[in-house]
């Protein structure tokens, strides 16, 4: 594992002149991930901000083969790419599908669960900004309870689906959560995933300042608060062995939630409920 940012490659395979908003969490994640994946990588990205940011007309920010796929097919396409590489005897190429929360957990879930069950030699990355931002910020299965979105003004009334648990249940080679606020941990996880012979899944909590209604310069700060509050646990399940990669400092969840515009309707009771959930998860007393 790299000990400091200074140890990382200076080469940027993604991120030079992309079309993302300033302070886009997904763009930061892409830049960090490519430090581990390297130039012998083929990436497929379904309909999402990340796909749109990656190129338009004759321009692209990607320095590796990049294919903007249909919304729900990236893991299936990647399976086919891997099959073709194998058929041609090409062994040293990473095949990655990189989707948003919709392209992973909702419209893209069928192709994802299929590829995971087959234990395809590939990595699927979910960059989760917790709503459908490429279409203006609607509610999806990864939207947390109570969050206000463009089509649910009163906030979501049901819980977020736990994609990490679902992917862990597939029994694949490697499952991990990662955060752009902890780049060395993120990069190490991409390195581990790329080295696996079968299927890996990495779930990134990827703040979107537009959807979350936070200042654009605070993207990394909110990513860190999510981890430090215990709401987004950094862990990995490597060949079935579960390890927590970071012990949170357990700042109150309120410090993460209450300053986000999307949670402006949160009642004190709701915040208490969320805090109780975190305490229970980590086995902490009230």
């Amino acid at each position, binding site marked *: 594992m790299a000990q400091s940012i200074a140890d990382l490659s200076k080469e940027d395979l993604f991120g030079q002149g992309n079309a993302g908003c300033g302070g886009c969490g997904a763009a930061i994640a892409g830049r960090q991930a490519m430090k581990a994946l390297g130039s012998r990588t083929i990436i497929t990205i379904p309909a999402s901000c990340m796909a749109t940011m990656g190129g338009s*007309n004759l321009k692209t920010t990607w320095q590796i*083969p990049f*294919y903007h796929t249909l919304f729900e097919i990236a893991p299936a396409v990647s*399976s086919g790419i891997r*099959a073709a590489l194998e*058929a041609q005897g090409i062994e040293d190429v990473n095949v990655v599908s990189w989707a948003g929360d919709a392209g992973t957990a909702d419209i893209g879930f069928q*192709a994802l669960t299929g590829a995971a069950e087959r234990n395809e030699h590939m990595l699927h990355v979910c960059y989760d900004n917790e709503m459908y931002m490429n279409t203006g910020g609607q509610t999806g299965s990864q939207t947390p309870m109570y969050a206000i979105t463009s089509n649910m003004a009163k906030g979501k009334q049901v819980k977020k689906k736990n994609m990490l648990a679902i992917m862990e249940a597939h029994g694949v080679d490697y499952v991990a959560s990662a955060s752009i606020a902890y780049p060395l941990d993120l990069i190490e996880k991409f390195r581990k995933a790329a080295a696996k012979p079968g299927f890996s899944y990495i779930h990134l909590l990827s703040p979107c300042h537009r959807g979350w209604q936070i200042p654009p310069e605070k993207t990394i700060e909110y990513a860190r608060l999510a981890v430090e509050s215990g709401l987004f646990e950094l862990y990995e399940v490597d060949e079935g062995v579960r390890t927590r990669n970071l012990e949170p400092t357990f700042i109150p969840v309120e410090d993460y939630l209450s300053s986000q515009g999307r949670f402006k309707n949160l009642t004190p009771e709701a915040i208490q409920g969320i805090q109780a959930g975190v305490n229970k998860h980590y086995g902490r007393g009230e």
Partner: protein
Amino acid sequence: MSTTLLTGSEAAAYGAKLARIEVLAYYPITPAFPAMERVSKFIDDGELNTRFVRVESDHSALAAALGASLAGSRTFTVTNSQGLLYMTEVVYHTAGLRQPVVMAVANRALSAPHSRFPEQGDAISQGASGWIQLFCENNQEVLDNMLQAFKIAETVRLPVMVNYEGYIQSHTLEEVGIPNQETIDQFLPLNRVRTLDVENPQAVNTVASPEFYMDYKFHQNEAMEQALTVINDVAAEYGKEFGRDWSGLIDTYQMEDAEHAFVAMGSMVSDARIVVDELRKQGQKVGLVKVRAWRPFPAEALREALKNVQLITVCDKNIVFGLGGALGTELKSALYGQDCRVNSYILGLGGRDVTTEEIKKVLELSEKTEKQATASEWFGL
């Protein structure tokens, strides 16, 4: 060349084997599944060195095939009816990306109501998708068209569907000649084009603004027009090499002095050959025009073949609701300005039998119809 008894499904599978496909992806559906199972068995028996992607849906089947094609491998899939409709989004996308995927389609009626039986409505539903579509009259043509399909696809960089009807062809044994592998390897050498290649990184399917999109579509259609020539050339080359010339875009039978022409595609064509022979014996000047390539639509070839015919009877095993039979409608459009009467009939939907007797009755009915109807008539209700 060896001759054996094969179903249409097996003929498609042998075609894929002779083409030495590198990647296979499919999701089982009736009645296409025996073709899939046969190719899988070739792989399991070590007769074919192909990677099989066991996807979880028809939609992912074409997606995986597309991915493999983008990475440069010769790729094959099989489906029909609901499976084809489910993958429709990827069908259009594959054509837009100009990937030479070949798909066998064991044509079956579309739901609702639910039907497992033959009809060409599934293929017709993809008529605007940008795929080249070949229709086969018998199982020999299924095998031969499979091999020609890869050659055509890789020449014009467009995907190709090879259509044969469910059960009537997919499950019926016929004598089929199987070419030698060595000769096929010369006819169809493996020529990998890698669109996704780490040695030459490219961005694929980036967002196209109005300044670009229309030009892409123009070039895509140009490739379709190029296929009008390539399909003929490939059929001629195949005919020379293997002794079976399926005559390109269309085929004609007893048309030299014909006054009444029967036009159809698929399994009806082989029955119609028998009918034409019988009616000729009775002194009737009847001929047959077979549409082998439905996409690109061979309008010029049809105008030429039908230029001296007064009466044309065209039959469709499909219905485009609110319009009529697809082939009938398109034929009338192609023949606009030509001095002839075109009677268009819809028959055989959802597996309703079309025998030589039905074809004879349709021809009789058409002879008796004095004025061309605007719409397609339904036959056999």
